[in-house]
């Protein structure tokens, strides 16, 4: 089980700084909605497909991400065909597909750690309105670190409940999972505080 969409390759797309990719994504995302004609979107879709090849993204990874959305897109397309017009349906579905592919490309070619670093940089100015960057960083890295651990814990509990014939009972899994998580949170807090972690270092001390 991997916990990132990132696909490690050495391509020009991987080397673009994450901030630039995110900015491009925002601009392109707005641009897609300004194009009124589906015919203009098709060459864009082809261009994105070429970028996927350049970034050496395996087809399977893309398919895995697109499959659940494809179902929804088909429904939206059919709804448009039945109630508005097929042209509008094509336009709307192509827009989503483009947006999704562009965002996926960014996710596939950017490390989660780099992305989070960028997010932290973007959030830094918010320190002025009381958002403590140290606290945000702690929360982000803790959550990242503990997703695999909690997934493993869920698996363990499920195995234990299987012995009691309760592995398909969501309540028998959720209650122990939450109690163990809350207990884990206590231990973790004590460990962090014991190491002297302080998000608000005294302002007077300067190095």
């Amino acid at each position, binding site marked *: 089980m991997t916990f990132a969409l990132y696909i490690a390759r050495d391509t020009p797309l991987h080397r673009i700084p994450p901030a630039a990719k995110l900015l491009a994504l925002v601009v392109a995302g707005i641009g897609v909605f300004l194009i009124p004609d589906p015919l203009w979107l098709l060459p864009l879709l082809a261009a994105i497909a070429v970028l996927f090849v350049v970034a050496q993204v395996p087809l399977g990874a893309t398919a895995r*991400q697109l499959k659940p959305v494809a179902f929804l897109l088909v429904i939206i397309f059919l709804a448009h065909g039945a109630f508005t017009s097929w042209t509008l349906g094509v336009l*709307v579905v192509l827009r989503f597909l483009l947006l999704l592919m562009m965002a996926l490309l960014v996710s596939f070619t950017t490390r989660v750690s780099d992305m989070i670093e960028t997010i932290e940089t973007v959030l830094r100015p918010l320190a002025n309105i009381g958002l403590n960057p140290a606290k945000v960083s702690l929360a982000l890295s803790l959550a990242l670190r503990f997703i695999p651990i909690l997934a493993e814990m869920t698996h363990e509990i499920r195995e234990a409940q299987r012995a009691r014939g309760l592995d398909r009972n969501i309540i028998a899994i959720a209650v122990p999972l939450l109690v163990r998580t809350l207990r884990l949170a206590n231990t973790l807090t004590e460990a962090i505080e014991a190491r002297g972690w302080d998000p608000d270092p005294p302002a007077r001390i300067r190095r």
Partner: protein
Amino acid sequence: MDTRDIVYVALFAAVVGALGVFPPLTLPLLGVPITAQTLGVMLAGSILGARRGALALLLFLVLVAAGVPILAGGRGGFGVLLGPSGGFLLSWPMAAFAIGWMVERVWGRLNFVKAVTINVIGGILLIYVCGIPWLALVAQVPWDKAFFGSLNFIPGDLIKAGIAAYVAVTVKRAYPLIQPAAVNQE
């Protein structure tokens, strides 16, 4: 927000992620497969309270946006948040906040019926109020079609509201967190 609050927020974001990474669980008796993720939204609100619950879900969405595939079915990335169902996802922090706010109001007298009611209001009604207009506007689907299409998910959501309520009341008995005494321990 002291260290303990931050740890709760982070671990709950991870719990919601862990719930999504797992294959859909099947309900006892009914055999309906459901993904446990909105269960996590309801539980975050009713176990952590408004502020921490909302922050946990916000953190979860930030991780999704950063490309961690922790949405049900192993999905992730910016695209999902901007897609047709983005409104439902973006409403999760608000839903957790609303649920937490209501639970805080009835904390001493919280029972199963109250918890279900709160989950239905905050965890179903509010999420649909945000998700359906988003679907209608972004996908340009007629409003009534978006509305009736979404109704298909109501039965599953009602079951989840019940499960979340039962779990929340049980966990409250084992580990009450919202009580002022517990919150201000340190």
